[in-house]
């Protein structure tokens, strides 16, 4: 088990180095740190001096090494638009995105587990068939369209919920949270529903098919033969076995939600990292773009590594040799 964890961490490190390399290459090719620092109203001589001073005339590899070293110390460059270190900007925006992903994951979990299990246990009932039908329509609707429809119905037509922004937020130890005010929560409703809409059908189908497979196994039949209650058989014997594949696939899928935050945040003008990323692209704010790439890359790598390790811990049959 220990060796397995070490190996996963080494692999995660390699992936991070590759991401760092890509990020640095982008920066090296496209970025202009001098402009980022002093703007364009400085003479060519002064710029050249500054270039020398910043080490921009060093070889690619030397600069890459410096980039990595700085990144380790939390320095991912300087955003020329915000006139602040890129990482600070991202950390300011991160809570908005994390709260959105959290709310969406919660919605996905609370709906997909009961619906998936129900439609696996009673596949022939009307509700199950209805849920399956809705879910295939669901996967076919792009997340930005769901978002637009939600805005049109609940904000433009009904005026029930706000259509953009985060609303009132509260500062909790430097974390700007929208979860603690009524206004913040009202603003969160539509974006989180929109974000969950893309993954929800996938989760329902995944849980359903895994559960159906498990229900056919010998050990479930044996559990019936032991005279256990339905509740125990479905919720403990079957569900626990369903969880394993759901966690591996599901963990990765939740990571994928981050990608969809870019779309959701754009539609709702949600001031998170995704919205910031697109603005950075429009403004050619290379440092911020690269910082986003590295931070999101790290997030993915951490999530995946943790999911893998959790999987190893839950599944008693995972041995070091089999991985």
């Amino acid at each position: 088990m220990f060796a397995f964890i070490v190996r996963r961490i080494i692999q995660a490190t390699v992936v991070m180095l590759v991401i760092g390399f890509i990020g640095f290459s982008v920066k090296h090719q496209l970025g202009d740190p001098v402009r980022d620092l002093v703007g364009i109203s400085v003479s060519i001589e002064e710029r050249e001096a500054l270039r020398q001073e910043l080490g921009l005339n060093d070889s690619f590899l030397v600069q890459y090494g410096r980039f990595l070293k700085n990144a380790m110390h939390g320095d991912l460059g300087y955003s020329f638009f915000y006139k602040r270190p890129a990482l600070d900007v991202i950390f300011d925006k991160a809570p908005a995105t994390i709260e959105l992903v959290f709310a969406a994951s919660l919605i996905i979990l609370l709906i997909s587990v009961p619906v998936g299990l129900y439609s696996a246990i009673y596949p022939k009932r009307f509700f199950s068939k209805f849920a399956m039908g809705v879910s295939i329509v669901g996967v076919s609707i792009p997340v930005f369209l769901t978002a637009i429809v939600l805005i049109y119905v609940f904000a433009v037509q009904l005026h029930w919920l706000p259509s953009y922004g985060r609303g009132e937020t509260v500062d909790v130890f430097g974390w700007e949270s929208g979860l603690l005010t009524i206004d913040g929560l009202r603003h969160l409703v539509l974006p989180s529903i929109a974000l969950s809409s893309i993954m929800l059908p996938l989760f329902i189908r995944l849980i359903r098919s895994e559960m159906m497979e498990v229900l056919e196994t010998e050990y479930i039949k044996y559990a019936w033969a032991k005279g256990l209650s339905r509740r125990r058989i479905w919720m403990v014997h079957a569900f626990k076995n369903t969880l394993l594949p759901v966690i591996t696939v599901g963990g990765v899928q939740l990571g994928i939600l981050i990608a969809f935050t870019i779309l959701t945040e754009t539609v709702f003008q949600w001031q998170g990292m995704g919205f910031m990323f697109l603005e950075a692209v429009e403004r050619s704010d290379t440092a911020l773009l690269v910082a986003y790439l590295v931070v999101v890359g790290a997030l993915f790598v951490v999530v995946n590594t943790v999911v893998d390790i959790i999987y190893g811990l839950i599944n008693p049959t995972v041995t070091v040799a089999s991985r």
Partner: protein
Amino acid sequence: MQTKRQKFKESYLLYSFKRDKVAMVSFTILTIFLLAALFAPVLAPYDPYDTASIDIMDSEIPPSWVADGDSRFFLGTDIMGRDLLSTMLYGLRISVMIGIGAVILQAIIGIGVGLVSGYMGGKVDAILMRIADVQLSFSTLMVAIIVSAIVQLTFGVGRYEQLAVPLLVVIIGIAEWPQYARTVRASVLGEKNKEYVEAARVIGLDSKRIMFSHILPNSLSPVLVISTVQVANAVMSEAALSFLGLGMPVSRPSIGSLINAGFEYIFSGAWWLTFFPAILLIIFILVINLLGDWLRDVLNPKLYKG
């Protein structure tokens, strides 16, 4: 030729197709859409690329059956005064072109990698599959968004928009190849140890020959199944990129960029600008997904989970 047709007529595929109404309707709609995309220049009442024929005075006219509608423009016009129906037909054409192009590209990369990986095994396999895993874990959409953002910065917005179609094909193709690689690898591993491959090796056929003439044909049914789903994914990715302003420009819009352009105007009541392209996109993706589901049930290949 006669026998081939006969064979198809008696095949299980056709039999179950005829029995499945959903599959038949989906197939019909998809065919109509594909034909509409192919013959867009013939079918469209106006040429949306012909700036001379567009009058800005005609902008934001609602669909013809609504009050204030204009009988010249069945589905109304967009903000630039283009006929929405014509623009949608051309947009569908672009979306389909990029979708199919991207799928062909990813299929070539993915099948190649999958074959090599599955057949060679060992270190090569481990490394290639790790790359695929890692890339997949970043989500194809994320990779596509970041790559297109970088490419757009490199080329500059103007050049990017000129080259948008081939660039999007490459970007989406690169983002999605791991799906193919994993599926093909899985079925290669399944086929590899079967007797006929063993036999081919024993009689001394070289490995390339075995891969292409023996293993590949037997891996085709899973490839067929994921291809349908992948076309839907590619069209969706393209729409998402265009919606974010990282795809097709409004002057040569795909369905996604039409929705993007229309979105700004739903608050002012011009709902049709978003509504019709959105419905078109959803139905297009839905019928492909339904067909994919049906194919998966019928061919029942061992697909890679996740």
